[in-house]
Every structure is written in structure tokens, then in C-alpha cells.
């Protein structure tokens, strides 16, 4: 079960991958942002094709095991309403050496962004709601091909 509707516990994920043979651990946390590129975002509503997310994340985790021998992975993706500053995703990779841990962690987040069917709608301080497209730009109108 990679999906949750609660706050993500990083400590629990770290414990999942901990091993005396792993000297390097890398973490990626994606958090809801309200920066200059946003426009008064107060929270993001995350939704997903949940059954497919579980399958796709399982395949990504298996790929890490094939590409980086000895690497261990734990991750959670949060759904529902997530306030600014809280994590929507946490990925933890541990490996005998640091290069493997970094590469595996980066691989997981890049594949998540590419393949895992999750969507987000920005809730803004002015009351508007906007679907976010992968480049980070909002799409208020249908994107005709």
C-alpha cells in the first residue's frame, strides 16, 4: 500500500529500509508549495487512479531492485487535501554506497512524475480551483490536441 490519506511518517519509511549493509540513505520529499510561480495556493487536492498507482509504484520499486543491486526502497504518496508545507510524496532509498542511493531516489521520483496517475488541483486564497498540468502551469481550459 503506497497510498495514504494521512500525514506521511518519514521515520516509518526510514525504518523500512534500514539495514546494516546500507551506508547511504537518500530521501526525497515533495511538499506543497506556495512560491512566486504559484498564485496564493493554500492547499492542493490530490486525486488518483488508485488501483493503477499501486501497480505502477510496485513496478518502479521492482525496477530499482533490478538496476541497483542491494538497494532498498520505501515510499508513500499522499492523496486528499494537503496544506502548503506538508509532504505529498516521500521516497527513501538505502544502498551500500551513496551514489546508488542518490541515483535510485532520483529514478523513483522521475518515474513517478512520468508514469504514476495522480492529479492535483490547486486551491487558491481567492477561492478558485485550478487543475495543474505536468509542466506546472494551470489548465483552466481543455487542452485540445
Amino acid at each position, binding site marked *: 500500500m503506497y497510498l495514504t490519506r494521512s500525514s506521511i511518517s518519514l521515520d516509518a519509511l526510514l525504518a523500512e529500509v534500514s539495514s546494516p549493509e546500507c551506508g547511504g540513505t537518500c530521501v526525497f520529499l515533495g511538499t506543497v508549495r506556495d512560491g512566486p510561480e504559484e498564485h496564493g495556493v493554500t492547499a492542493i487536492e490530490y486525486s*488518483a*487512479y488508485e488501483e493503477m498507482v499501486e*501497480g505502477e509504484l510496485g513496478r518502479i520499486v521492482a525496477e530499482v531492485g533490478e538496476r541497483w543491486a542491494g538497494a532498498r526502497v520505501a515510499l508513500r504518496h499522499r492523496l486528499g487535501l494537503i496544506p502548503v508545507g506538508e509532504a505529498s510524496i516521500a521516497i527513501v532509498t538505502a544502498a551500500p554506497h551513496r551514489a546508488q542511493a542518490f541515483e535510485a531516489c532520483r529514478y523513483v*521520483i522521475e518515474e513517478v512524475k512520468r508514469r504514476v*496517475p495522480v492529479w492535483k488541483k490547486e486551491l487558491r486564497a481567492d477561492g478558485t480551483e485550478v487543475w495543474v498540468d505536468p509542466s506546472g502551469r494551470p*489548465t483552466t481550459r481543455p*487542452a485540445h*490536441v
Partner: protein
Amino acid sequence: MAPQTPSGTIRVRFFARYAELVGRAEAAVAVPLPATVGDVVRRVRDQLPGAHDIPERPLTAVNLRHVKLDASVRDGDEVALLPPIAGG
């Protein structure tokens, strides 16, 4: 007499903005077989109110896996129309 064309029923699922456009999360769509995912998308866009605003070539999945539009579908398959992915 020509043999009757076999027909399949596809469960089509909509997510995020596409679900808002069609005002529903899923639909049962009948297609003559053999058929591709592209055929299912065309039926959906032609027949379902609001669905014409879904792109002609959306991201699609069959039975929980990403596929291209030329992938074939069988009776009982689940086809999902996926807006641009924005997770993580």
C-alpha cells in the same frame, strides 16, 4: 448471410479534469470487435455528453497499465482516460 459482428463492452473510467468534463467517473461503452483503445476513445468523444472536450489522443491505460492508442481491447476490459499526470 454475413456473420454478425461481435461486440464488446468496455468499462471506461474518467479521472480529474476529464471526469469533470463528462460529469461522471465511468461509463460502459459498446464497441464492435476487434477494436483498439483509439476506437474506444472515438466512441466516447462522439457519444458521451461533454466528452468532446477530452483530447483526441489522451493518455490511456488498459487494465491498469499504460498503453498506446493502437492497443487492442477485449470484452470486459477497463480503459482509463488519463489527464496529463501531475503527481509526486
